[in-house]
């Protein structure tokens, strides 16, 4: 991803969690000071890259996921500098119960 100028790259604060039914992955990225038009989000089955340019520096975050997601069905909204991505998991989780000896 090319930057318009040589701006410092900064890691934004990120967090990720499952929704209650373990069906969707929700990722939150803090990108204050970025306008929606300067925000770029790309996603694959196993990760995402978010890029936001502001006046003084550029936010960049690239992360892998622990479980595969259906990137085509990802929904993203950007509100008050907070990017929220909701994407369903590709396969439902099948945790195996381990018997403790």
């Amino acid at each position, binding site marked *: 991803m090319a930057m318009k100028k040589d701006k*410092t*790259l*900064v*890691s934004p*604060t*990120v*967090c*990720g*969690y*499952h929704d209650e039914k373990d069906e969707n992955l929700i*990722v*939150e990225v*803090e*990108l*204050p*000071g*970025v*306008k929606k038009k300067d925000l770029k989000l790309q996603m694959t089955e196993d*990760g995402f890259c978010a890029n936001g340019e502001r006046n003084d520096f550029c936010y*960049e975050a*690239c*992360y*892998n*996921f*622990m*479980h595969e997601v259906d990137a085509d069905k990802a929904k993203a909204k950007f*509100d*008050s*500098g*907070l990017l929220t991505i909701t994407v369903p998991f590709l396969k439902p989780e099948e945790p195996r119960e381990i018997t403790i000896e």
Partner: protein
Amino acid sequence: MPTWDPFREFARMERDMRNMFDDFWGGRARREALPGPGKAQLPARREEALVGTPTVDIVDKKDKLVLRSEMPGAKKDNIRISVEEDRIHISGKVEREEEEKKEDYYYSERAYSAWERTIPLPVTIKPDDVKAKYKNGVLEVTLPKAEEAKAKVKDIKIE
């Protein structure tokens, strides 16, 4: 008063270190694993947003002071600003409500936290002319300086 949370301090330190390295090496192309719930490295919730006090920058712009504070994901109605001639008070609250309906049982859990800061200003300002806006997660407050506080530049003629 926010209670001191050692894990939040470590998370912040780690983030600052990471930013320092990013600045030095000019960015990174490698990907980091985003842990699922239960892993300790990254928070599963934006704890910073719930508990942390936002950082504030104040810039001197000749006839006014401009205060900027980054608080992504906040709601305008939850932020309070008040000013006096020589100081500014900012406070905010974050409310999170989780509701769960299980058959006849209705249960609600609310997470509430508040923060407050009073910042003394380097010069006196005009409280009546103060303007504030919250856009893209950044709070910006413009504080016009009082007449007597404006720098008076006098050109000296060399005889």
